């Protein structure tokens, strides 16, 4: 197709939107892995579960703008609770057995996917974000001079949440503990920190982020069965590219993957997945721990 600079810009914006969602989902994933070396393969299920939960709450409250905000909060808190329970009741007992934990999360994700299908069916659910977020905004270089307002909001939200996470990690005591744990877990307990409690907090936080992403992302792209697999896979790729345990890495990885995906889909549709996986393979060849990751 002929190259159109305006389309090029718009596709780039689409890539950033996608990157925003990927960042929100993968940030939780990388925190959990970075600190606890737990690969939470049920992360995508948390995204979907949070989205459905948020939708149910929003619908029960009448689908108003306030209901939407409540949905976001409920999704975050709800999934944080689920994450807490997962770590407390199952994963916490297998500390150190990474593979077993991963397999347990796979089992949970299979069950979760099926139960969600039973409850919510194969239908597509759409959210109702507040009206002022709906519709389009004028953007000078986009197609028809307009771009979806909600998507711009999404990018902004991801940046804000990213900043908050960064502040949490760098300016608070908890954040300091988390960063120390990512660097050297065993030393952490030697210093007298209640490591299991920190693990619970981080797992809850990571899970909550996934739920939050579910509502925010679902409002842009709607939700249905299969989204759990999609966002799990993208979390894996983003974190492999960006590096485990690094928030900056997730941001970079999300942007690379999101933007590459969109450009690939637009300009090279039959081979688009190769772009994403080619990037992943290239990063692994040069830096096996990701762009900003450290050796285990």
């Amino acid at each position, binding site marked *: 197709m002929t190259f159109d600079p305006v389309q090029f810009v718009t596709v780039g914006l689409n890539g950033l939107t996608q990157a925003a969602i990927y960042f929100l989902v993968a940030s939780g994933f990388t925190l959990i892995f970075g600190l606890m*070396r737990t*690969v939470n*393969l049920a992360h995508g299920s948390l995204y979907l579960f949070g989205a459905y939960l948020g939708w149910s709450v929003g619908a029960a409250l009448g689908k108003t703008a306030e209901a939407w905000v409540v949905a976001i909060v409920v999704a975050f808190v709800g999934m944080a609770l689920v994450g807490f329970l997962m770590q407390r009741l*199952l994963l916490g007992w297998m500390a*150190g*057995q*990474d*593979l*077993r934990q*991963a*397999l*347990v999360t*796979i*089992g*949970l*994700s*299979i*069950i979760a*996917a*099926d*139960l969600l*299908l*039973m409850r919510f069916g194969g239908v597509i659910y759409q959210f109702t974000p507040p009206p002022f977020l709906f519709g389009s905004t004028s953007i000078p270089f986009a197609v028809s001079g307009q771009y979806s307002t909600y998507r711009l909001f999404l990018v902004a939200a991801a940046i804000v949440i990213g900043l908050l996470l960064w502040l949490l990690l760098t300016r608070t005591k908890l954040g300091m503990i988390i960063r120390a744990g990512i660097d050297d877990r065993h030393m952490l307990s030697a210093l007298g920190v209640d490591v299991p409690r920190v693990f619970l907090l981080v797992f809850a936080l990571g899970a909550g982020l996934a739920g939050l992403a579910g509502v925010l992302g679902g409002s842009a792209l709607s939700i249905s069965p299969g989204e759990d*697999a999609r966002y799990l*896979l993208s979390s*894996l*790729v983003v*974190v*492999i590219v960006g590096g*485990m345990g690094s928030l900056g890495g997730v941001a970079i990885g999300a942007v690379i993957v999101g933007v590459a995906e969109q450009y690939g889909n637009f300009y090279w*549709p*039959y*081979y*688009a*997945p*190769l772009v*994403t*996986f080619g990037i*992943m*393979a290239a990063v*692994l*060849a040069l830096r*096996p721990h990701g762009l900003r990751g450290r050796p*285990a």
Partner: protein
Amino acid sequence: MKRFATRRSALFVLALGLIVYPLVVSRFWSVTIGAHALILGIIALSLIFLAGYGGMISLAQTAIAGMAAYAVAILTVPRLPQQILAIPDEPHWPAYLAVAAALLIATVMGALFGLIGVRSQGIYLLMLTAALGVGFFYFAEANYDFLGGHGGIPEVVSPIGYTSQNPAVFYYISLAAAVALYLGVRYLVRTPFGLALQGIRDNPRRMRALGYSVGLHRIAAFGIAGFIAGVGGVLTVWYNGSISPGTVDLTRVIELLVIAVVGGLIFPEGAFVGALAFVLVDTFASSVPAIGGFSFRERFNTLIGLTFLLVVLFSPNGLIGIAQDLTARLRRRRSAPPREPLTESLSRVGRDPASAHADPASEP
């Protein structure tokens, strides 16, 4: 002596049963249960080979089997679907050539995936191979030039015609392939290569110090596993009579893992036991009457997930592990010290070589 004779006769009964099987049961049971279980078992064998003897869990085996399946489909199908844009005329290769090409592709791609993951360990490798495996699914869905996209390639005829029309012959072909590959794996792990591979599984740093090339061994192992998966893939496309992205999607990837884990992740036999169990449950779940509104036919996946979870939590060595424990208890005899579950030994690999266990039972 007595035990030897009993074991001999048990094996004899088994072999007789396997051979006589298609002659006494219906077409459905020969092909859709029997051959299907054997084929899934072959692909699971490739996963178990890598996991049990190489210490590497690869979730990309389904994809590699799929690549072989696509290769056979493209090269032998009488008529390509109109969605395929980049191939003007059907290649119409003879079956033996197409199969050789497919197995070559599977081996090479297996080795390539091994190369990509050569510096990754344990859980990281699992994530990586999962991404690669599912990535192939997305590629198959998206690509219309060669792979036919969402619809895939239908009406692939095997050398013996549609396999459901020749149930006994197809069953025997699958059985022969399964037995050959199983014996091949058992033999391979006793060779110097096999032993080195297991050494690398247990303690790569030590092996490196001894002068073994850890990377090359791993890549070779992936290549071999790719070959095995490729055989499974060829049989799969003949079994289905078609290939489409649905054969390699995330559900199938996880199914294969479930089969391997439930069967027993470190035992090659586990591949086939797990596959048979899975196929039987899949078939019978729909016949179980609904209990209190909870229909197993519809909630089959929950059942699978629960079984998987229970196995991982309570018997990481799967069905074979359970059988082993039971037999040992029945005989009231202490056999060789039980092998440490793979899941635990794997956790220690690659972290602190000094504390990696010295496994007395190094013979599989």
